[in-house]
């Protein structure tokens, strides 16, 4: 029942997000009487002939009033017909299909890497003992903050300059199908995210380490390893998981920069190229796809949270208090 409501809610949210993004993009690109025809037909330093301009204007439906074009665009989006690219003259769906896998591979690799980095750093920081350990933990905390605020374009440029150009260890460019080329772009995308997730995870671990439910588990004779994996880590991973939707959003926006920097094909690059020439169907298609992906990820993480967090699974009205939470994992173990 709750799952069904969740899915229905997700669908509603998806429709709303698609409508809002399509509208914003359309008016951002076509508002103020901006005409993409010259950009489509000529580019810098050329002048299209009158017949060619008229032919293109009719072909792309640009002779209709903007409102009609907008409604047209909405109708197409609603029927999942993304139309034809102004500049490339091929179906937008084909362009998205070609660009999507490359971006997904990059984002997924980066996400896994970010989780792993965050976990390692958080574990070291929390587990540190003694003066040296505390010093290391302090440095790691500092690094987390620095990593969080590091811009992608800067980190990418540094990695290209030092690792690719300087040391010659890895290629400066990234081509799908070549694993070596994926390393630097993934690190570029993962590090800022890892810094952020690491802070969250460390707070969660520190909090869970002293929480009543771990004390209770230890008192029942559970091994330290079991207490850690079943109670502490589980508790600490919840906020990280909850923010995965946001993390995916951050990765996709970062992918725009990273794909340009490393010359890697993908959705971000498609979006930039299309925006520059005012290719409305492609921009709307790409943005809608990203928005849908975001909704899907948020919905999946919502469901996963229910699996991991018993508090969300058994909503007993008025009874689900934080005190309950400490008892639930015990019941599971």
């Amino acid at each position, binding site marked *: 029942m709750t799952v069904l409501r969740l899915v229905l809610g997700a669908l509603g949210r998806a429709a709303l997000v698609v409508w809002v993004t399509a509208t914003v993009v359309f008016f951002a690109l076509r508002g*103020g*009487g*901006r*005409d*993409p*025809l*010259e*950009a489509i*037909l*000529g*580019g*810098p*330093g*050329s*002048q*299209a*002939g*009158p017949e*060619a*301009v*008229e*032919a*293109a*204007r009719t072909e792309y439906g640009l002779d209709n009033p903007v409102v009609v074009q907008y409604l047209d665009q909405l109708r197409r989006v609603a029927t999942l017909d993304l139309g034809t690219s102004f*500049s*490339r*003259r*091929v179906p937008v769906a084909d*362009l998205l299909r*070609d*660009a999507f896998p490359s971006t997904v591979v990059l984002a997924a690799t980066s996400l896994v890497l970010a989780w792993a980095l965050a976990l390692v750093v958080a574990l070291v920081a929390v587990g540190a003992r003694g003066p040296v350990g505390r010093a290391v933990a302090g440095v790691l905390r500092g690094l987390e903050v620095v990593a969080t605020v590091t811009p992608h*374009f*800067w980190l990418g*440029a*540094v990695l*290209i*300059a*030092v690792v*690719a*150009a*300087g*040391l*010659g260890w890895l*290629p*400066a*460019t990234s081509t*799908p199908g070549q694993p070596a080329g994926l390393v630097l772009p993934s690190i570029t995308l993962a590090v800022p995210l890892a810094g952020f997730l690491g802070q969250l995870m460390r707070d969660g671990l520190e909090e869970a380490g002293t929480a009543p439910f771990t004390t209770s588990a230890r008192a029942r004779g559970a091994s330290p390893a079991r207490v850690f994996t079943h109670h502490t880590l589980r508790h600490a991973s919840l906020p990280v998981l909850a923010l995965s939707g946001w993390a995916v959003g951050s990765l996709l926006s970062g992918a725009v920069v990273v794909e*340009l*920097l*490393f*010359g890697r*094909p*993908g959705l971000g*690059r*498609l979006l930039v*190229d299309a*925006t*520059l*020439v*005012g290719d409305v169907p492609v921009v709307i298609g790409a943005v809608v796809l990203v928005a849908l992906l975001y909704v899907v990820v948020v919905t999946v993480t919502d469901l996963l949270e229910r699996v991991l967090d018993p508090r969300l699974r058994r909503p007993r009205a008025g009874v689900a208090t934080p005190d309950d939470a400490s008892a639930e994992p015990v019941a599971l173990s």
Partner: protein
Amino acid sequence: MRRPAPVIALSALALVLSACSGSTGGDGEGSGSSDPSGSAQAGGTLVYATGDAEPTCLDPHVGGNYPQALISTQYLEPLVGRDADGTITPWLATGWTVSEDGLTWDFTLAEGRTFTDGTPVDAAAVKANVEHLQDPDTGSSTGYLAVGKVSEVEVVDATTARFHLSAPDAALLESLSQQWTAIQSPAGIERGQDANCAAPIGTGPFVVEAWTPQQQVDLVRNEDYVRPDGTAEPAALEGITWRFLPDAATRYAALGSGQVNVIDNPQPDSIVASEGTDITHIDAPRPGSSNRIELNTAQAPFDDVAVREAFIRSANPEPGIETLFAGVTAPSYSPLASVEPTAYSDESLFGYDLDEAEALLDGAGWTERDADGYRTRDGERLTVRFPVSTNQSVAAEQSLFEQIQANTRQAGFEVVLEPMDLSAWYTALGENAYEAVSAPYTKVGPDVLRVLYHSDSTVPAPSGYFANHAQVKDPALDALLDAASASQDEAERADLYAQAQAIVLEGFYILPLYDQQNHFLTRGVEGVETLGTVSTPTFVDAALTQS
């Protein structure tokens, strides 16, 4: 957008590091394009990394921009070429004659030449190409203009194509030497635009094999290649991988680390840093117009020549050009590129003189200053709206505009720089919402002056665009440009164009800045040349060197 200092510092670090690794890798000196060191090897695939936008169509007839000219040079060839002196040379056409009235041109084609699909290069193919350019469905802009005066191509016999013109066109040969009017297989064109955009079929030293969008175009050697002089000799390279790498620092890093052999659009600091390494620099300014700031004479304040002169006298771009472009280019004082033999310069008109600028503005009635220090007249501020296309102006050029903004402020101008993308920029121009603007214009030969300064070019196309951004309407200038266009006499033509350029310069319609920058860096390859037409590189004689 300007790069923050850390990035520049790191680029410098990368250069130092790559220079170190470069010198340990080999002889460390000169595998330059002119170096006959003998380490060249036949075969292999050259990797070219371009920073220009990825073409949306590989057929330069469609649209017609510089990125298309760059890549199509490798697989399509024009009817005629042009050498470094500006002399038109035979290419697919071995000869040509023109009638006395200038309305009929006969082009003779070499016998027995074929496109890579086997279709013969004959008069019917030439006719089909001109018709393709003139067909509105093709959506040609640059090539369409180039053959604008051609009313019909008549097939006299298999090797003779007769061009009938609606009016004399002295620039016809120059127009036909451009990559945008290159000749391709009519059978290829007949496949339809989608197929032809993906892989046009020509006569060039390479053939398009595959296009992976956003990534690369794979070109393979044309084994049956016949050179312009008629000798059959294929290229040494087996192929070219044409990669799209938008970031300039990444391109340079990829060159330094040996991933690519040739890059275009390097940053000025990369060019300077590459000196003394095993990287070779090729400087090939584009033909046609110089880069310049055009002042809109159609409305206040630049409808007044005194105000235009005041702006130009106070702009002082020279120190900025020297520092921002790191000495890789020289200031221009001509409407035309320095590679045009007919270019006319007058440095004396552009000397920096702030006092003179102030006096001119006082005389023009801009006598008051407001609270911000800008001049005003009748309560109106001396404002110059300057839309800047971030697609067309590189970072260094945008910085130069900022310096000019600061310099002209001394005289009391308020220059409002408005960075925008291409479609917004076209719209601003179409709405006359500018007082100053800078746009590149590449075209072979001085006829570009007619495109940019003839009053006909102030009439907007249906899309709203026009090329005469300064909106010059001068009957004397029009007459000179018309006469030059109709003249069959080279000396007379050159003289008419010199007079026309003098009018453009003395009218203070434009502030020339420098040639349209076109640089290439190569490493591990020799024999890279650039064409005398639109300065695109050709790899027909290129060979990879041992590293």
